[in-house]
């Protein structure tokens, strides 16, 4: 396992892999949105709230379809070729676990010194 993030071997196919990851996140958000709205629809009573949620649900389903089509076309998602999908799943997981073990960021990430005042100063919360 390679934990040196500066090794150029790690940038091989990086744009494709990054896009596949972002697209997968996008797809899952669209999917979660559709599910959340479906559940909300059965919890609401007011006609205008229902109409709004149903409208958003339709838009969500359409967006989910668009993301799916794009991902299939780019070969980032294989709903029919399941052994292709299996390989992608395993490689993505393996790759992300490897990235997870890298030391990518400085120890102190507070960056407080970059701001001219503390965020809570206006409410007198210096030490908040």
């Amino acid at each position, binding site marked *: 396992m390679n934990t040196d993030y500066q090794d150029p071997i790690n940038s091989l196919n990086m*744009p*494709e892999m990054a*896009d596949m990851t*972002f697209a997968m996140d*996008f797809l899952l958000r669209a999917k979660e949105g559709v599910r*959340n709205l479906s559940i*909300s629809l059965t*919890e609401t009573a007011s006609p205008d709230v229902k109409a*709004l949620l149903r409208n*958003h649900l339709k838009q969500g389903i359409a967006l989910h379809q668009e993301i799916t089509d794009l991902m299939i076309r780019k070969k980032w998602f294989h709903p029919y070729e399941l052994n292709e999908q299996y390989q992608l799943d395993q490689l993505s997981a393996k790759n992300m676990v490897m990235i997870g073990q890298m030391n990518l960021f400085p120890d102190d990430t507070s960056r407080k010194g970059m701001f001219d005042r503390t965020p809570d100063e206006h409410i007198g919360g210096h030490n908040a």
Partner: protein
Amino acid sequence: MNTPTLAPHESMELHEALNFKTLCLAKSKLMQGLVFDQELKALMQKDVLQSTQQIAELQAIYARAPFQAPVPNSPTPITH
């Protein structure tokens, strides 16, 4: 204009829908700066525009929640 107050459980659904949409908008906006594929970026931009519209619609109805309160104009959030 007939604008009855929402039931508490409906308000909660709108609270969750609004926060989910807000986070999705943030993510689609931020990720456009990281994405390489221009078609994927365009689809994310579509989501930004659609989410912005949906948030406005959710806000309009959420304003009828029984616990609604005046919202300050200042962009600084209430974090306390």
